[in-house]
């Protein structure tokens, strides 16, 4: 596909997207089925759902790491004037993974990890002036010479963030990046992530199974149905002003609404399992 960076795109669209995998026993099963989703430019879109509902599959499809079995994943121009299918990974869509130890390059220090992408382009020099600002943005300025094994879990995720941001992607894909962190570190990073989203003005797509996290961060939350054959159940807009407080009446109300939706899903899944 054409790189969307620099183009006047307006949305990312998934239309009737399904993805089948072949199990070890040879039978096919659907990770996701008939997903219809539109994510507008500049959104902080949270995909909320239980484990195993195909959230990661959706991110991999958007990243271009996997191809859909059915349907289209495409970038759409203003007023649907043009459409460009996503058929390969590109630096305009960078991903941040939950398991930072596996995703980082353990033989490179913080600075070298961040410069990995720029060096692949053969024009690392033009990225060098951005190195320090991005390290500062994620709070790793004091740790530029450290190796990943010397970093805490939270710092590793900051490093993944800087490594992605320096490529200045249009879309940042995040696969439960804070799920393995302790509650305090997690809250700190959530606040910073919201700030980084605001500062960069990029489109963030964030997968999570944490209702509070989705409401703290997202401009919109897509609630997924339980997998297999998962899809988007409902989508809610989150208009609360930032910085958001988990204690506000509005917030508690929103949590209740989402909990109700997820409870419905759990009951539906239980009913299917009993059939």
């Amino acid at each position, binding site marked *: 596909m054409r790189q969307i960076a620099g183009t006047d795109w307006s949305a990312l669209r998934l239309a009737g997207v399904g993805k089948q995998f072949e199990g070890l026993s040879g039978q096919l099963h659907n990770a996701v089925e008939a997903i219809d989703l539109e994510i507008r430019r500049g959104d902080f879109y949270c995909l909320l759902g239980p484990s195993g509902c195909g959230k990661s599959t959706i991110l991999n499809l958007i990243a271009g790491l996997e191809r859909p079995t059915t349907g289209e994943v495409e970038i759409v121009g203003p007023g649907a004037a043009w459409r460009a299918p996503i058929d390969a990974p590109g630096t305009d869509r960078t991903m941040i993974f939950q*398991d930072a130890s596996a*995703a980082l*390059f*353990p*033989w490179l220090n913080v600075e070298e990890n961040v410069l990995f*992408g720029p060096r692949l382009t053969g024009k690392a020099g033009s990225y060098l002036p951005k190195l320090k600002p991005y390290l500062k943005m994620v709070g790793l300025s004091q740790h530029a010479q450290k190796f990943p094994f010397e970093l805490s879990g939270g710092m590793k995720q900051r490093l993944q963030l800087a490594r992605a941001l320096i490529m200045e992607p249009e879309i940042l894909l995040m696969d439960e990046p804070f799920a393995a962190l302790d509650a305090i570190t997690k809250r700190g990073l959530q606040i910073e992530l919201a700030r980084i989203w605001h500062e960069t003005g990029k489109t963030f797509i964030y997968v999570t199974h944490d209702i509070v996290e989705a409401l703290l961060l997202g401009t919109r939350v897509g609630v997924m149905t339980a997998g297999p054959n998962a899809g988007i159940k409902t989508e809610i807009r989150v208009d609360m002003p930032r910085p958001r407080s988990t204690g506000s009446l509005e917030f508690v109300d929103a949590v209740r609404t989402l909990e109700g939706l997820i409870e419905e899903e759990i009951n539906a899944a239980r009913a299917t399992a009993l059939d």
Partner: protein
Amino acid sequence: MPRAPQLSIKEGATVRVAGFAVTPFTRRVLWRLTCAAISFTVILVLWQLSVGTLLNAALVATPAATFSKAWSMIQSGELFGHVAISLWRVIVGYVTGCFLGILLGAIIGRYRLVADFLDPVIELIRPISPVALVPLAMLWFGIGESSKYFIIIYATIVVVLLNTAAGVSRTPEMRIHAARCLGATDFQLFWKVILPSAVPYILTGMRIALGFSFMGIVAAELIGAREGIGFLIMNSQMLMQTSQLFVGLLTLGILGLIVDRIFRALLARSMRRYMRADELI
């Protein structure tokens, strides 16, 4: 640079002895050297006492005889000649074997199809020890240098290949995905992600192969050589020169130890950033 790994230092603080600061680390090293010295002294004494009493003096050389023979062979330069020729054979064969092993192993680890075709062949070859190939090597290459290189390349290549293939195929998929999202082409992916990820495996294979190649060279020289440590050992046996035979064995042990230390000092140290902190070799 990564920090040096913490050696297991027992509790205790730095103390000063005669004006020198003795750290727990120094104490640990001194302790280990003392232990080694005591072990060797005990063995040498027992050995010296048992020859002529428990053991037949015609079949077992005393330590004294062994060391005096070693000293005269060092002075005449004879020992050095044997060591140099064996070492050179090992270096040529080992370096070639490592290069080929890494190359083939990387291809096998990366391409499922190649692995499917070559795995059965490798599984069949693997149990055949380098020693068993010596007669064949001499048949093919004669008693010249090529047959020695062949044996050592064989001894090296299999284990390096298998380890490289394992390392390459075990690169975390997430790391590959991350690199592709950052714009890596297939070529960059291989050289900048997959191969570096496999370095711990490759180094482990290379270190095992180093031991194998010493076993291989002695086997090759035992049968068809006019110089080298293997020849020295075999020749001593034919001449009933037990002290010279013991010198040959002792040289092998010391040489193996030194080469392994050099390997660790050079290669493991320069590749340290590729190793996980907990598996430095």
